[in-house]
C-alpha cells in the first residue's frame, strides 16, 4: 500500500514536471535584421541579398513611393557593386601601360556620381548607400583607388547623416588615401 502510494506520487510529480515544462512559455526567437554596419569586416554584407520590402496596406502614397524608390535603389546598388573594377579585371584589361588612371577605374566615377545625385535628392537612401560604400571599401578584390573613394564617401555621407560608422575598420592603406581626397562637403 505504502509502495503503491509512493509510486503514484512519483508518477504525479513526473507528469506535473513534464506538463510544467511544455506549458511554460517559450522565449521568442528575436529575428533582428542585421545591418551591414553591425558586421563591419564582412566582405559582402547582406547588401547583395537585400531583403524584400514588405507590401503594406496602411502606408500613405508618399511612403509607398519611398519604398519603391528604396527598392529601386537597392537593385541599382547591387548591379553597380558588380561593375566596380577589380584588381583581376585591371590585370586582364589590355587598355594601357597603367601610367595614368586606367579607363575602367575612371569609368567608376559614373557610379559614384549617380549615387551622389540620388542621395542629394532622397536623403533616406543614405543608409543603403553606406552599406554599399562600406562593402566596397572593405573588399580586397577591388582596385585600391576605388576602395579609397568609397571610404571617403562613407565618411562624408555618414557625417552628413550623423550616422556612427566608428565600428567599420577601414584598412590603414585605404584610409590614408581617402583622407587626402577632396570631400563632398
Amino acid at each position, binding site marked *: 500500500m505504502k509502495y503503491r502510494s509512493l509510486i503514484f506520487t512519483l508518477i504525479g510529480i513526473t507528469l506535473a514536471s513534464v506538463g510544467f515544462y511544455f506549458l511554460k512559455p517559450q522565449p521568442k526567437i528575436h529575428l533582428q535584421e542585421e545591418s551591414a554596419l553591425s558586421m563591419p569586416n564582412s566582405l559582402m554584407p547582406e547588401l547583395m541579398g537585400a531583403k524584400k520590402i514588405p507590401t503594406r496596406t496602411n502606408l500613405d502614397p508618399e511612403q509607398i513611393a519611398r519604398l519603391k524608390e528604396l527598392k529601386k535603389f537597392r537593385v541599382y546598388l547591387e548591379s553597380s557593386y558588380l561593375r566596380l573594377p577589380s584588381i583581376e579585371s585591371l590585370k586582364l584589361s589590355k587598355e594601357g*601601360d*597603367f*601610367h595614368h588612371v586606367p579607363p575602367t577605374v575612371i569609368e567608376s566615377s559614373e557610379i559614384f556620381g549617380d549615387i551622389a545625385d540620388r542621395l542629394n535628392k532622397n536623403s533616406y537612401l543614405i543608409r543603403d548607400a553606406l552599406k554599399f560604400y562600406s562593402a566596397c571599401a572593405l573588399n580586397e578584390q577591388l*582596385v585600391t583607388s576605388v576602395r579609397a573613394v568609397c571610404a571617403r564617401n562613407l565618411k562624408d555621407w555618414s557625417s552628413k547623416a550623423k550616422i556612427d560608422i566608428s565600428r567599420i575598420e577601414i584598412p590603414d592603406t585605404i584610409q590614408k588615401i581617402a583622407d587626402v581626397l*577632396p570631400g563632398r562637403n
Partner: protein
Amino acid sequence: MIKRWGFYLIAANLLCSCGLFKKDDLYGIKFDSTVPEEQKELLVDDLQFIGNLSFSNVTSQDLEKIDLPELSPNALVQFLVSRVKYIVGESYDSDAQRTVVSNNYYYSPTKFAAFQSPFDRVVTVMTNSGSAVYLEGKKNSILYSVNVADTDVLVNSTRVGIIKIGEGLFNSSRLQSMSATSTAKRLLRLGTLFHESRHSDGNGSNAGFPHTKCNSGDFAGYYACESNINGPYNLEAMLLNHFYQSCYGCSQTELSAIQVSAADAASRLLYGATRKDPQPEFVK
C-alpha cells in the same frame, strides 16, 4: 583709299600666316605639326583655363610636393612653361627625328653611377619624350638632338620639355557623360600635363623623376609606382585635390572623376617615399 585698305588686308593676312593671331604659341609652348588641330585647340584652351583656377587651404605639404613657394595660376603657368616647351602628337616618332650629335659623350660619372635605385630597375614611361631621349642618351653616352616643330633641339637636359600627347588624353568615350570641353575634362588633362612636366625635373638617379616598379598592389610588376613625395603622381594627386575645388558647376560624376583620378595618383606612392632634389641636370 582703296590702296590703303588693300594694304591693310595684305598686312592682316601676313600677320595671320605668321601665326601672330594663332593660339598655338601660348606661353611660348610650341606645337609640332603632328598634333591634330582639334587637340591643339583643346590644349591651348586648357592652358588658358589655368587662369581661372583658385586655390584655398594650401598647406606646406602641398607646396613641398610641387616645390613652389605658392599655389596660384601664375606660379603654375611658370612651373609649366619651364618644363614644357614642345608638344608633339601621337604619330611623332622621336627615334626617326633624332640625330646623334656626339658619340661617347661624357656625362657626369658621379650622377651616372647613381642610376641604380633601391627600388630595382627604374624607367620613365615614354610620354615625356624629351626626358626619355635624354635618359637614353645618358645611358648610352650619346648626345642627341631632335627635330621638333621645325626646330633642331639639343637634348642636353631632362628640361628639354618635349611632351607627347595621344588620343587617350582626349578620348571622351571613356566617360560618356563628359565632353572633351567640359571643365572636369580640362582639369583632368591639366593634371596629366603637370604630371608629365614633373618628368622634366630631377638629377642623378632621379633624373626625369622616373616611376618605380610596384612590388605589390594593383599594379604589381609594372613601373607605375613612385618613391618620391614630390614626384609626378603625388604632385598630380595634390593638384587634382585643389582642382576639385575649382570645378564650378561640375556634375557629381565630373567631381567623382576628379576624385577617382586623385585617388589613383595617390595610390601609387610607395611606403617610405622621400623628397628628392627636383633640380634638373644639364650637360654642356
